[in-house]
């Protein structure tokens, strides 16, 4: 019942959003016209590990099923599962990979700009964070890489 009510809440919020924004996301480059008029949720799940997505992420995705478009930013090993569930996905390089690769001129700037573009390109109406916020992820990575 609680889950149902939560969904009802999201639906109500979404209806309000649509009324306010008219579904207009002119900078959402990665959305078709049809998707721009629908609702978009962006899930930041940057430190997911293990073989499958965590229970917490799966629970969030269940809640977000009322959104027409769901985008998950996570490590690429979870792409097949997300694709199978009909979601879209993005990724940021993991801190360990960045350190090992010894590449890149300015990770802080690069990741900050990338996060901004992910938000712009998908134009989310709603964001969920499981694990670190993108900004603290960038801060940690930059600290380690410098």
């Amino acid at each position: 019942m609680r889950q149902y009510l939560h969904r009802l809440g999201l639906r109500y919020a979404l209806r309000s959003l649509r009324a306010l924004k008219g579904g207009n996301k002119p900078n959402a480059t990665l959305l078709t016209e049809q998707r721009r008029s629908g609702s978009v949720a962006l899930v930041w799940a940057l430190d997911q590990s293990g073989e499958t997505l965590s229970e917490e992420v799966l629970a969030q995705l269940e809640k977000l099923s009322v959104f027409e478009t769901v985008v998950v930013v996570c490590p690429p090993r979870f792409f097949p599962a997300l694709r199978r569930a009909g979601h879209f996905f993005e990724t940021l390089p993991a801190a360990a990979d960045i350190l090992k690769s010894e590449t890149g001129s300015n990770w802080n700037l690069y990741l900050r700009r990338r996060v901004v573009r992910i938000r712009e390109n998908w134009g989310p109406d709603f964001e969920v964070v499981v694990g670190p916020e993108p900004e603290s992820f960038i801060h940690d990575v930059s600290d380690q890489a410098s």
Partner: protein
Amino acid sequence: MELDVLYLADLRFPGGTSTSLKYDLRACKRAGLRAGIIPVSSPVFARNRVLNRALLEEIKATGTVIVPQNERPRTRLALLYHPSLLDNRVLFRTGFDADVFCLVVHQPTRDRRGRLYYRTGNWQSLAADWFGHDLRLLPVSSIVRSDLVQHGFAHALHDGEWTNLIDPDDFPQKQIRSLKRPLIVGRHSRADPEKWPAPQVALACYPETPDFEHRMLGVSQDYLDEFETLPWNWKIFPFTSQPVSDFLQGLDIYSYYHSDRWTEAFGYNVLEALAAGLPCVLPHYMEETFSDACFYAEPSAAPQVYERLGGSRSLMEKASGKARSFAASHFGLDQFARKFEQVAGVRKTRSRVVPGSHGTPSTPVVMVVTSNGIGLGHLSRQLAIAGALGPAVKVVFFSLSEAIEIARSMGYLAEFRPFHRRLELDVDAWNGYFFQELREALGHYRPSLVLFDGNLPYVGLVDALESYGKSHNVWIRRGLWRTPQPESIVREVYFDAVIEPGELCEALDLGYSKVTPDSVATVDPVIMTRPQELFGRQAARRALDLPEEATLCLVQLGSEANFDMSLPRELLFDFLDRHPEIIAVDVRSPLHIGEHSDVHDRLLFRKVFPLGKHLKAFDFAVCAAGYNTFHENLAAALPTLFIPNSNPESDVQESRALHGSLAGWNLACTADDPYEIETQLGQLLDPDIRRMLSAECARKTGCWDGAWQIARFLRVLAQLPANPLEDCGGKRKGKPE
């Protein structure tokens, strides 16, 4: 890095310039001097013209150093090795410090009608500003020296000349045959119209008469089209159809005349003929270079010289001996030390050292951009090449493939961007997005080399590469295109090289990807696991947790995302029902998620990538004929029934399966023919047939080095450091080219 001589050279010249460099490198090594090369690109060629293969082989054979882009060598002598290279359109990415810097001038400044061959206006300032030296010109001959004096460069001329050299050992002495008619009179040159006299002059010096047969290696079709009918005694051969030394062996007399617009700066083709001991008949002006080693005549008088030579065996023998000894004594490899010392002078203390320029060089970055195919083909090929490049470079993947985790799990930094098809986006809108994403990544990673693997370079990709402008760009694309793709071919101009991984079924390739053969370099097939790297049968079965004694059939019918393989699967299950001794193993990538709709108690599922190392685990296979599976199964000598995916958007897999079956490497049938599938599966049960297929595959040796060949090519093109795993003779050492 300390060198004796540094060549700043374009390695793409097709004729004498590259041949003379080749022998310079050999002579330099024999003289005990250390040579290095900084490859540069002359504006006289299209950007993606292929590198000269013979020169690449000599670089490898002599161990000549390709100066890594991020190093600054010191050298006694630096030679800018063609006059077209001292030009503000040429990009010099690598600095150097040289005691002496000279421009080698291989060509007069203009043709006989005054048309400039190359720009000379900025020579003085470019030499001073870009290289920190006064302009010093080294002509290759006195003909070029005279031209430079005539056109105002006397002040910059070096006293010496940078004479072209040759190794007579590469040109066996021609044995004089009995002088019966017709006499074989021949010539060779690259197929440039300027290398040919006007048709009426050609008919005078190469006349249509039963007394002479004229053999011509390298004639342009445009030139031949100027004749209403070709003389019946002219035999025309493409320039690359045979080694020059072989061609020369078939001649009695060498005769070279060219357009009246052209001046031959040196005449490397003549030097090759002399080295082979051929009497040479030439225009009078070339006496300045070849002295009394040749015969000189007006074109119309040349046939009289042929007659005189053909009428006297002793004259022919005398001329032959003189030709060869002249070539050896004036242009032999032992001349190198003399010309080097004359130009380099005494060893000096270093003149111009840029502060801070000799620190530890940073490791160059290679960015690999792969498109999003149905399978893992693009990614697999690039992983093979990345492995062959080795740890001396840092490889970053920037991919549209949703399977990018595979690259990440193999230790590479891997970025992903979504492809327009999955998003159902307008292609133009997506290209704008991709441009922005890739341009940002290029700025951040600063690659010196970008590899693109895909059939169509996206507008967003080429725009980003052009905007960045600091990388060598290479397009790697497999062939076997099903239809012409002109929209794709025109984008070759954005790349410094186009490389096509080899196809064993090349004979059936319709050639749509090689519309411009001069711009496409080909190598052996690119596979991730070469035969010598395969696990043995027992180890492979243990690694895959498969029974050690059973008869195992590998099943790889592809993702089936774009092609229906349900009939072959159904028939395979019937086959398993009838043959309880067989266990089938369906192998997918570790990323594959999905319910296994195929259920049979003797169909096992395994997830592994790359599979190549484990192929000895299987007794036979039933597979689609994708590029990687086809070549890896053949390399592993695994008896396979190939059932091609015939989707119109994919490559012509049918050709692979068909060619392989005709060659005896594999069995083949189509996915829609149940009777043929049944028959062929039955054949795979026969151990004799499996042995025969395996034996035929095993005969294909020495052709599995494509990834390593590409890596060697890229190291030259983009001045990347050597792979220590290859050079130290480690496990992955490649075969000699």
